[in-house]
């Protein structure tokens, strides 16, 4: 057994593909041989070239060898459209050559010889072989192909370069090359109902930890952006609590009083209620207390930043000024695209970048709509809320209940109320032919609170909780005090009738 003192640090090559290095625990290992596989159009070539240009920009030298049909001219023409492409690096630091004729004429041995000589003479530190399937087809036997891969591994070390092999094979068919290489990265373009989602998965990575499972990615003009699955990336949350026992004001004195001093810092509060019941209004109060020293973030799906500013203005708040002094940021994500992890990363990076301490996630069903696999959402939210707590951010989530009036509270998502520390319930009540908003605290972490039902009054000066309602009221069902009185009278009358009938029978 090798003593610990003899363990050598494994040098890594960062990829320049946002998110991929996090999946690979820091990047590809130097001298490793890796397969990147996927169907045509899945993004292999872009991923490899993005890595190449990043590597070259950091002083490395790259050789990109093609064994298949796409000409270098066509490939370069397509790559020119992407932001990472830097023509000044081509030829000197990133060289392209075709080895197809060499493979055809001299076979595997000739190809190895060519690669070794070219890599050595050009002092290559990253070698990409695009179309490794052509080598497999040329090999007389499986053993010859395995020998080729083995020799590549040896030369990777001797020449001092890392090798990427691009292939169209999929993990459904595990070829001999899969058992021999140091790692396999698969890229797929998955069709889910009418939507498509690109996904990347590392199925093998020798000598290193990595984030298992599928990770969504996107191809834009900037190149590839990988969004590591949030619950996988944040699977080991720290038990630290930067907030300790402090309280955070909700921006509503009457609500703070009901909470016995405000929300516990770093906690998550879910606000359940039907549309128009006052959830966003309470949330805007919370954000109005944002300061440059304790900034806020509105992360919404349905209302544009301009509408939020107008809504806040109607309550007497100047959100434009708060944005100017960098006390508040309004991020809007119309729920048109399904990429849950992209949203999660955007939320967390917005919080980390500005040290945000107050978050209003307005319309949690926007996340639900972005989830290709809705059963992930609880795990996703667990990871997000843990991370927000670690950042010292106190968060309010609004969840819309489907029914304006109902005797039951049907939560649109399972498990969310147990996941979050505090629960507020908003309801409408009909009283004297008028709809009134009711509010109650259902749960508050490790703390006493005033759980009485109160009317939530919204005026041009903001919202406030009125005095507790009368003892007869059952506002969470939507029934008014008056109607409850009638129900009570009816019950008393029927009891009298039953007593009269018994007396007659007797």
């Amino acid at each position, binding site marked *: 057994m090798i003593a610990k003192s*003899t363990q050598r640090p494994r040098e890594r090559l960062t990829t320049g593909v946002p998110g991929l290095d996090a999946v690979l625990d820091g990047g590809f290992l130097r001298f490793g041989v890796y397969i990147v596989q996927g169907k045509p159009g899945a993004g292999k070539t872009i991923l490899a070239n993005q890595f190449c240009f990043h590597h070259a920009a950091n002083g490395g030298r790259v050789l990109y060898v093609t064994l298949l049909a796409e000409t270098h001219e066509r490939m370069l023409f397509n790559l020119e459209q992407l932001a990472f492409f830097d023509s000044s690096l081509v030829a000197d630091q990133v060289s392209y050559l075709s080895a197809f004729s060499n493979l055809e004429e001299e076979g595997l041995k000739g190809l190895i010889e060519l690669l070794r000589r070219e890599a050595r003479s050009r002092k290559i530190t990253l070698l990409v072989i695009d179309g490794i399937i052509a080598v497999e087809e040329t090999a007389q036997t499986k053993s010859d192909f395995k*020998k080729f891969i083995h*020799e590549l591994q040896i030369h990777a070390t001797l020449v*001092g370069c890392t090798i990427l092999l691009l292939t169209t094979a999929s993990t459904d068919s595990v070829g001999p090359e899969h058992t021999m290489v140091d790692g396999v990265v698969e890229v797929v373009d998955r069709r889910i109902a009418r939507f498509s989602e690109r996904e990347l998965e590392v199925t093998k990575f020798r000598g290193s930890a990595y984030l298992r499972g599928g990770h969504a990615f996107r191809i834009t003009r900037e190149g590839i952006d990988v969004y590591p699955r949030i619950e996988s990336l944040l699977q080991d949350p720290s038990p630290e609590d930067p907030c300790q026992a402090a309280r955070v004001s909700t921006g509503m004195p009457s609500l703070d009083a009901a909470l016995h001093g405000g929300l516990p810092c770093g906690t998550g509060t879910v606000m359940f209620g039907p549309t128009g019941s006052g959830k966003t209004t309470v949330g805007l109060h919370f954000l109005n207390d944002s300061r440059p020293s304790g900034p806020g973030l509105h992360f919404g799906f349905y209302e544009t930043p301009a509408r939020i500013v107008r809504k806040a203005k109607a309550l007497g708040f100047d959100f434009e000024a708060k944005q100017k002094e960098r006390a508040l940021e309004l991020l809007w994500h119309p729920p048109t695209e399904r990429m849950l992890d992209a949203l999660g990363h955007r939320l967390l990076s917005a919080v980390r970048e500005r040290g945000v301490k107050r978050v209003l996630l307005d319309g949690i069903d926007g996340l639900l709509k972005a989830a290709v696999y809705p059963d992930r959402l609880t795990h996703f939210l667990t990871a997000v809320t843990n991370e927000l707590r670690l950042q010292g951010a106190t968060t309010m989530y609004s969840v819309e209940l489907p029914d304006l009036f109902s005797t039951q509270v049907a939560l649109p998502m399972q498990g969310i109320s147990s996941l979050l520390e505090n629960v507020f319930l908003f309801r409408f009540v009909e009283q004297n032919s008028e709809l009134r908003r009711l509010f109650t605290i259902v749960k508050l972490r490790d703390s006493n609170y005033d759980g009485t039902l109160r009317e939530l009054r919204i005026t041009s000066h903001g919202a406030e909780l009125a005095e507790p309602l009368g003892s007869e009221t059952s506002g969470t069902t939507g029934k008014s005090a008056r109607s409850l009185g009638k129900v009570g009278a009816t019950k008393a009358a029927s009891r009298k009738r039953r007593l009269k009938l018994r007396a007659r029978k007797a």
Partner: protein
Amino acid sequence: MKTVLVVDDEVGLADALGDVLRDEKFDVRIARNGMDGLKRVHEQRPDLILLDYMMPIMDGCEMLKALRADASYRDIPVLLMSAVATSNIPADCTVTAFLRKPFDIDTLMAELERLGMTRSPK
């Protein structure tokens, strides 16, 4: 032209080292284990031996001891190659130099230069 004997049971590596050293204009012989290596030494005395440590039949240290026991081969420089650290190699396995696997060509060439194995003119 200087002669280098590469003794390694890892066929791919021995062949690859052979290719690299031939590029550098060395005359290269290859053996698959210590026993085979001793046979090659007797056939033609090399100027340097690149010797793997862990091999079947006869390992690198056993071959080295046999070589050092013969006065006519005692002074041949031996560069021991191994994936294990020097601390895991027996103390009586005294070699001229040690290369920890994996190593790259530049490291190998620098070691050869240090041992006075200057490349033949190309």
